[in-house]
């Protein structure tokens, strides 16, 4: 008798936090023009899925990621450039939505770090070489 609730539980379907609507037309379909599709694809790999947060929209099966792919593909199809589409999203969600960081006050250190490290390493190496020569 104790088994019955367990059996019933096994039969129960999980409650899905997803809509009953079909995916958007261009969520899982490529653009007809291969060159446009290549550009859309490259951009989709650099856009962050809004609800999964660790994945690009190219990688994610979340419904909103599908809708975002549809948005990217329809805008590229309509003749917009990938950077226009990216800017449109950044305007709404901030640079957070893009995996290609733009140069700004928040990212200055990110871009300056390689130069600083190279400079520091160069100074160390130069001092070493001088000492050896001397």
């Amino acid at each position: 008798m104790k088994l019955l609730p367990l059996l019933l539980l096994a039969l129960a379907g999980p409650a899905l936090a997803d809509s009953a609507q079909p995916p958007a037309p261009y969520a899982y379909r490529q653009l007809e023009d291969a060159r446009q599709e290549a550009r859309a694809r490259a951009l989709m790999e650099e856009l962050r899925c809004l609800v999964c947060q660790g994945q690009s929209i190219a990688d994610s099966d979340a419904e909103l990621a599908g809708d975002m792919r549809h948005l990217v593909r329809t805008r590229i199809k309509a003749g917009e450039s990938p950077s226009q589409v990216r800017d449109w999203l950044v305007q709404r969600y901030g640079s957070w939505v893009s995996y290609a960081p733009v140069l700004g006050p928040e990212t200055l250190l990110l871009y300056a770090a390689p130069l600083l490290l190279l400079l520091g390493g160069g100074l160390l190496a130069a001092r070493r070489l001088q000492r050896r020569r001397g």
Partner: protein
Amino acid sequence: MKPKLWLAIPLIVLAFFLAAVGWRLSSPPNPTVKSRLIGQPLPEFALAAAVPGKPALTSADLKAGEPRLLNLFASWCVPCIAEAPVLVDLRRRGVVIDAIAIRDGPADIARFLADHGDPFARIGTDPQSQVQMALGSSGVPESFIVDGRGVIRYQHIGPVMPQDVPTILAQWEQAK
């Protein structure tokens, strides 16, 4: 004495690393994504009616001189059920509420309204989340307060709960 100090460096690095990890574990980053359109005019859109007998929603409807609460909901969204009675209460207090149904069908929306109350003046349907993205919203439920000139004044992310009512009412008054 000097070489021994050098030996302590990995330990110091480890201590910094552990402190950083501990700090992030104790105060995790906020995962909600705020719209950057607060203070900006509402993007243009025209949505079809979500249920028969209920007016459709266009961006022009949200520039009619009176502030409006724009609620993004869906019949498949569980927290939307939690906020439904609070929206009904806000409507009773004079807040005019329009809605956008995200990825939803007319039969499901009609059932949701019948079950959980219908405080909405207009409901537009956004089956592919395209207007949701134009608004800089990343989930349901979310609510925006739009003033009479169509400028987005406030965004509430997640369900509007009873404790949020004073804030919503204050923002609503400010938008007048």
